[in-house]
């Protein structure tokens, strides 16, 4: 004990200095407490109040995110800054990811209570807001975690919040089953990942990824180290829903309420990508690393995910299930940005994830809209709705075109940036895998059109004789998606308005 005493002032100073790099997260924790207490005091009827508090809070957090850019520049550390005893790392990339997460979270917080089914929940939605805020805190940690311990803790934090969200509304057996499946698979994958982490720690004697872990791993047996890395990557892959760790995705996405699906298909995935970057960077920058071939492994994973996700989506008729499979395909495509191992690839990835997130949330919001109105969850139920609800249907077309990646939408520019970044690297090293990735990406775009166009097909092309009376439509979802569609088109025409900030780093 006495030996540690001289170290204490150092640690305290470190913690004290770290706080200014931790402002958005501190805001988030305060926000969590405020929402939680509001819920306790005002009870079931505090839904609207909680929503207002949560949304305003997130705006403040976004502002804090943006302050961090100048914080890094002012302190002369645009390359990044380690804090909390090397547990966390703040870089411009991380700030970009946090920004994307918070913006999408802001949209999601608006959307949650507009889904009639979720809103009908008898416990009210106030709890939901506090869970979501807590999960955003976890997501922030995920983007910054660089220590094996903090990586594991942050993933667990997000996972537990996600389990709660999926099982939040469980009035039918399908969603109960989905919730249980998610918990079981999630727990199993966490265990696998923890096993990998402990092996890595055992081999290298260090938890600090940017410290001695990588050099330590070089000393150990190559096969064993590859095995350990594989286990950790499987755990991260579960969060990203990459093939072959994707089997939970369709059931959970279908079983959960639509806004929760929108949450699951965007935020944890984006944070997962940030975490993957954090995990890979030490290996990539460690020049002598000759063990596990990350590029080969991730390329194969990306190609399989793109093919499996997109082809499986073709067979689906349930809209949410189809979007679930398509999100697997999108993850595979986005992985291309990481496989480049360049800063440009990461910027392209951030942009791609942002536009994917916007479009996917908008698509699921529109699915909510149609379910609210007609109860339709299958594309069959969309038959002939295009004439009755022209605005929503046209918006759906715009959103789906963006997800397919056709101009003039944000999805196209996202694809363009990813392809360019891969091409640049290919031009330098002529790695056949990069070429295969691009060809698969192009081919699966055609496949994806085939199933995305199914929704416009049923909305507009199929005619129906059954004419039910139009239900009073909810304008809130409509106005949200109008804004999102405008953003999608604007980003399609002027991609540099956002991309120029992402390509700063």
């Amino acid at each position: 004990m006495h030996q540690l005493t001289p170290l204490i002032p150092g640690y305290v100073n470190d913690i004290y200095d770290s706080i200014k790099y931790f402002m958005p997260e501190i805001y988030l924790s305060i926000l969590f407490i405020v929402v939680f207490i509001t819920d306790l005091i005002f009870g079931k009827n505090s839904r609207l109040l909680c929503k207002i508090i949560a949304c305003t809070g997130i705006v403040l957090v976004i502002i804090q995110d943006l302050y961090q850019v100048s914080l890094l520049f002012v302190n002369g550390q645009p390359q990044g800054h380690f804090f909390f005893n090397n547990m966390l790392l703040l870089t411009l990339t991380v700030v970009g990811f946090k920004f994307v997460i918070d913006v999408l979270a802001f949209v999601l917080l608006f959307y949650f209570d507009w889904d009639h089914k979720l809103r009908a929940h008898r416990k009210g939605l106030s709890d939901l807001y506090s869970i979501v805020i807590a999960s955003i805190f976890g997501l922030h940690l995920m983007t910054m975690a660089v220590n094996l311990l903090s990586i594991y803790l942050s993933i667990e934090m997000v996972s537990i919040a996600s389990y709660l969200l999926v099982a939040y509304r469980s009035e039918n057996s399908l969603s109960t089953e989905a919730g249980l499946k998610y918990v079981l698979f999630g727990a199993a994958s966490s265990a696998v990942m923890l096993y990998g982490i402990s092996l890595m720690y055992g081999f290298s004697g260090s938890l600090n990824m940017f410290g001695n872990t990588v050099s330590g791993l070089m000393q150990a047996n190559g096969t064993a180290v590859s095995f350990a890395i594989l286990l950790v990557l499987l755990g991260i892959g579960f969060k990203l829903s990459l093939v072959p760790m994707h089997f939970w995705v369709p059931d959970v996405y279908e079983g959960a309420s639509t806004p929760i699906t929108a949450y699951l298909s965007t935020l944890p995935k984006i944070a997962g990508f940030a975490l993957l970057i954090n995990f890979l960077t030490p290996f990539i920058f460690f020049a002598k690393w000759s063990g596990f071939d990350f590029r080969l492994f991730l390329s194969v994973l990306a190609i399989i995910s793109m093919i499996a996700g997109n082809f499986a989506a073709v067979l689906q008729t349930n809209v949410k299930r189809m979007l679930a499979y398509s999100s697997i395909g999108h993850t595979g495509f986005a992985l291309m940005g990481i496989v480049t191992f360049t800063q440009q690839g990461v910027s392209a990835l951030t942009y791609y994830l942002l536009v994917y997130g916007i479009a996917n949330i908008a698509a699921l919001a529109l699915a909510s809209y149609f379910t609210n109105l007609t109860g339709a969850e299958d594309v069959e139920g969309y038959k002939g709705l295009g004439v009755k609800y022209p605005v929503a249907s046209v918006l759906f077309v715009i959103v789906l075109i963006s997800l397919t990646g056709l101009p003039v939408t944000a999805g196209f520019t996202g694809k363009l940036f990813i392809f360019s970044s891969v091409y640049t690297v290919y031009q330098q090293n002529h790695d056949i895998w990069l070429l295969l990735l691009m060809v698969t990406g192009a081919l699966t775009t055609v496949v994806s059109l085939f199933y995305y166009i199914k929704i416009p097909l049923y909305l507009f092309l199929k005619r129906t004789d059954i004419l039910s009376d139009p239900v009073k439509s909810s304008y809130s979802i409509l106005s949200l998606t109008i804004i999102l569609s405008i953003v999608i088109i604007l980003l399609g025409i002027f991609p540099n308005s956002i991309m120029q900030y992402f390509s700063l780093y």
Partner: protein
Amino acid sequence: MRASFKYITLLATLVQLCICVWLYLNFKTGAGFSGIDHESQFQFVQKIPWINLNLGTLGTMQADYFVGIDGISIGLLVMTSLVMVIAALSSWEIKSNLKGFFALFLLLDMALMGVFCSLDFFLFYIFYELMLLPLYFLIGMWGGTRREYAAIKFFLYTLFGSVFMLLVMIGLYLSVKDPATGSHTFNMIQMMNPANYTPGSVFSVLSHQTIFGFPARTVGFVVLFIAFAIKVPVVPLHTWLPDAHVEAPTPVSIILAGILLKIGGYGIIRICLGIFPEVASSGAWWLGLLGIISILYGAFNALAQKDFKRIIAYSSVSQMGFVLLGIASQTAEGISGAVMQMVSHGFLATMLFFLVGVVYNRVHNREIYNFRGLGSLMPKYTVFIMIAFFASLGLPGFSAFIAEAFSLAGAFKSSSVNGLLPQWMAVCGAIGILFSACYFLWTLQRMFFGSLSLKGGDIWKTALTDLDTREIIALVPLALVVLVIGIMPSLVFGKINDSVLELVSFTKNIIH
């Protein structure tokens, strides 16, 4: 309010026609205005910086709103704007959801004009893809019984071509640097100059890179060619066309046959030939062969069809084969013939599809064997049918004759000038004209001659009224234009000649 949509559209297309005619009249000719690979020689240029993205170590990404026209595009622009007016006139037959129809129609119009004007590959690609969605809905919502199948087939075919075009486009953009600004650029004209390619880049002429073991530039050419060949369409990539043309409503068939197919030919000239001239030249034999196959295969298929609209659809495949044959010859005659054929076929296909639409609207049937002796029942209609048929089969005095004659002359000359195409190809092309005479005349005989006999009996007889004023107004300008161009081909050749000569000499210079 409901009725006003079509008048708004008609007015818009008329204004557009006036602008294009004005452009045509003010289009300067001469060696100093030949365009192709000289940015300064383009006319009516507009260049506005659009995307300028600093990508750190990789330099800047540069895409401009860059439009301008030269001899290759001016004829197609005027043709497009006239065809759009006719298509708007024929939209009178559309009865449901007018607002949607005309909104999509005008969106499509914008994309079509954009494709022919853009000189920036990125802009070109955006317009190129922007056509797909309106067409999908136009075919799918207002089409015939198998419309869903036809619409998705068309969409998937074209998208298949264009996603790979996207990859080549990115490859070109990363290979080319604008010498003025030093940043990577999508500027097509810069891409034509071999000196602008960074050494060692994928598509650089000098670096001899390979993709999957094949020379990179050949792969790039083939990918772009396939994308455009799907549009033309070149056999064996044509199978979407009969379905799409037959299922589409008349105005959309007109746009498809009259304009959309030309985008393929235009793309091959401007992009495949302009950016990869040496590959085009070494692969000329194959291009010529594909052209011949399209001519003959299209003609044979047209002979075998029983549906009036399908005959016209296959005749388009056959006639567009001449475009490819002319381009493959890489002679001044051949390329002029190709451009002329595109302009001429634009007018003729419009006329033919419009005429098919007239019968179909009246009785909702177009099976050839269900009609006989229409000549006595609908005399005015028959006059226009005869003009269109004889013009299409290449009767001297009409535009198609000039176009086909020049394409074939180019193909004949090629063996002695640059040795790209053997003479038997030109002979096969000439045989193709013979077959086109067969199917047109045979159709004429079956449907219009002889004594009146209709499957629908008296109901059809009363339904099949002769052309009304609106239809005559739509058809007369087309008939006049093909006749005038046939008599005075200089109206087109005079404007395109400088650009064609420049293109031929430019490709020659690059190769040697």
